[in-house]
C-alpha cells in the first residue's frame, strides 16, 4: 500500500541552506547538495528546496544546485521560490528537478498552473499555499514570503488550484512556522478534505509526535520538516521508526 512520506525541506539562500523563524532571522545550516545526498541515504522520501533568495540575479546559483543534486540524489525533489514563467519551470525540470512549487506567481498568474500542468504534466506542478488564520476555521492566503495578504480564502484557493491542474499542495501554516508547537491540524485537515490532491503539511513541527498528528489527525499525505532534521534533533530513521510504531505506514529501507 501507498506509504506516508517524510519530506525534509531545505530553505536555500544564495546557494546555502538556511533556517529562519517565522520567515525571518536566518541561520546557516550547510551545503544543499551535501544535505540532500545525506537525506537520500537516511531514507527521506522526497526533498523540497525553497529558494528564498530575494533577487532573481542568483537564479543561476539555484539551477546549479539543482543540477548537482540530480547527480547525487535518487529520490524525487521539488524546487520552489521565485519561479514566474513557463521558461523558469522548464529550466528547473531540465536541470533535473522532478517537480516545481509555485506560490506567489500562482496567485498572481493562475494560468501558470494550467500551462505548467499542460506542458509538463500535473505530477510536477506543486502549489505552495502560505496560510494565516483570520478567524475560527478560516484562513487567508499570503504571498511574497508571507508579507502580503491576498484576501483569498485558503480552502477556495485550494479547490481552484486543483481545478487548474495542480498535482499536489504544499500547505504551510504561517502562524505555526518555526514555532515547534506542531502543525495547524485543523487547517491541514480542512484542506485535505477540500481537495483530492495529496497535501503536504508544513509549519510548526517540533517533535515526532507532531509528524504523526499531521498524518493522522491532519489527514495529510506527507509531512514536511526542516529544523528537526537539519540540527539532528531527530534522524529520518528515528522519525520513521516512531511513525511505524504508531501504526502509520512508512517506507523502510529494507
Amino acid at each position, binding site marked *: 500500500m501507498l506509504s506516508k512520506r517524510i519530506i525534509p525541506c531545505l530553505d536555500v539562500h544564495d546557494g546555502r541552506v538556511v533556517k529562519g523563524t517565522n520567515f525571518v532571522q536566518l541561520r546557516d545550516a550547510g551545503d544543499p547538495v551535501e544535505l540532500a545526498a545525506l537525506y537520500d541515504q537516511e531514507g527521506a522520501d522526497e526533498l523540497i528546496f525553497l529558494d528564498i533568495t530575494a533577487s532573481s540575479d542568483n537564479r543561476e546559483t539555484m539551477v546549479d544546485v539543482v543540477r548537482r543534486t540530480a547527480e547525487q540524489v535518487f*529520490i524525487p525533489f521539488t524546487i520552489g521560490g521565485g519561479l514566474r514563467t513557463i521558461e523558469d519551470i522548464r529550466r528547473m525540470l531540465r536541470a533535473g528537478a522532478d517537480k516545481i512549487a509555485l506560490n506567489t506567481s500562482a496567485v498572481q498568474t493562475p494560468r501558470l498552473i494550467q500551462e505548467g500542468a499542460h506542458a509538463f504534466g500535473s505530477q510536477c506542478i506543486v502549489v505552495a499555499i502560505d496560510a494565516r488564520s483570520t478567524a475560527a476555521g478560516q484562513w487567508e492566503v499570503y504571498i511574497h514570503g508571507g508579507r502580503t495578504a491576498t484576501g483569498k480564502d485558503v480552502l477556495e484557493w485550494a479547490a481552484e488550484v486543483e481545478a487548474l491542474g495542480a*498535482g499536489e499542495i504544499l500547505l504551510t501554516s504561517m502562524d505555526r512556522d518555526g514555532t515547534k508547537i506542531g502543525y495547524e491540524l485543523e487547517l491541514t485537515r480542512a484542506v485535505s478534505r477540500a481537495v483530492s490532491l*495529496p497535501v503536504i503539511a508544513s509549519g510548526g513541527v517540533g517533535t515526532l509526535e507532531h509528524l504523526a498528528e499531521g498524518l493522522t489527525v491532519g489527514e495529510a499525505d506527507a509531512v514536511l520538516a526542516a529544523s528537526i532534521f537539519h540540527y539532528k534533533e531527530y534522524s529520518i530513521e528515528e522519525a520513521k521508526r516512531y511513525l511505524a510504531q504508531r501504526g502509520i505506514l512508512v517506507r523502510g529501507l529494507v
Partner: protein
Amino acid sequence: MIGIVDYGRGNLRSVEKALEKVGFEATIMASPTELNLVNGLILPGVGAFADAMQALRQGGWIEPLIRFARSGRPFLGICLGMQILFEVGEEHGEHAGLGLLAGRVVKFPPGRKVPHMGWNSLQLEQPSYLLEGIPNESYFYFVHSYYAEPGEKRDVAATSDYGVVFPAVVSKDNVWGAQFHPEKSSPWGLKLLTNFGKWVNENAALSGH
C-alpha cells in the same frame, strides 16, 4: 551502451544520472537512426498515452522500437514508457500502443486520490532477472493515474496495491516495464537499474549485439 529514447517526454537526465551512478554508460538518443549503436534501450515517459504515441510517431520511432524489441536486445519501459508497451491505452479515448505486450491501460477507479503518487511496496509474483536481489515488500516511487491490465498473467513479475492490485513490473522475454520510477527509487530502484545494466552487458557478450 544503453540508449535512452528522447522523444520530448520524461526526465531523461535522471535516468542517465542513475545509470551512471551504478556504473553503466548511457546515451540520450534524439533519433531512431542511433538504435543500432546500443545494446539495450530505456523508454522513459511522463504525460498522456496518446501524446506520447503521437510524439513517437512524429519522431519516426514506432517501427524502429518494435524492431529493436524483436532483435532480442534488452528493452525497459519506465512509467508511461511501460504503459505504451501494451496494445491499447484508454487515456482520453482509445489509442493504440506499441503492442509488445498483450493488454490495456486503464484509469484507476474512483475512491482514491489520483495520481497514485508516492512510495508503494512490491509483491514479487514471479522470479525475474530484473528483480534479482530485491526483497519482497521493497518500496518504489510511483506517479501515475492509469495502470496496465495485462492480457497474460505470466507477463507480470511484480504487483503493487493501491486499492486495486496492478502490475508494477512486467516482463516478456527481453521486454520489461516498470510502472514506478527506478531512477527515483533509491536504494532498490538503483539495484533494478544495476540488474538491467548487467543484463544488457551479458546479452551483448552472448549475442554479439
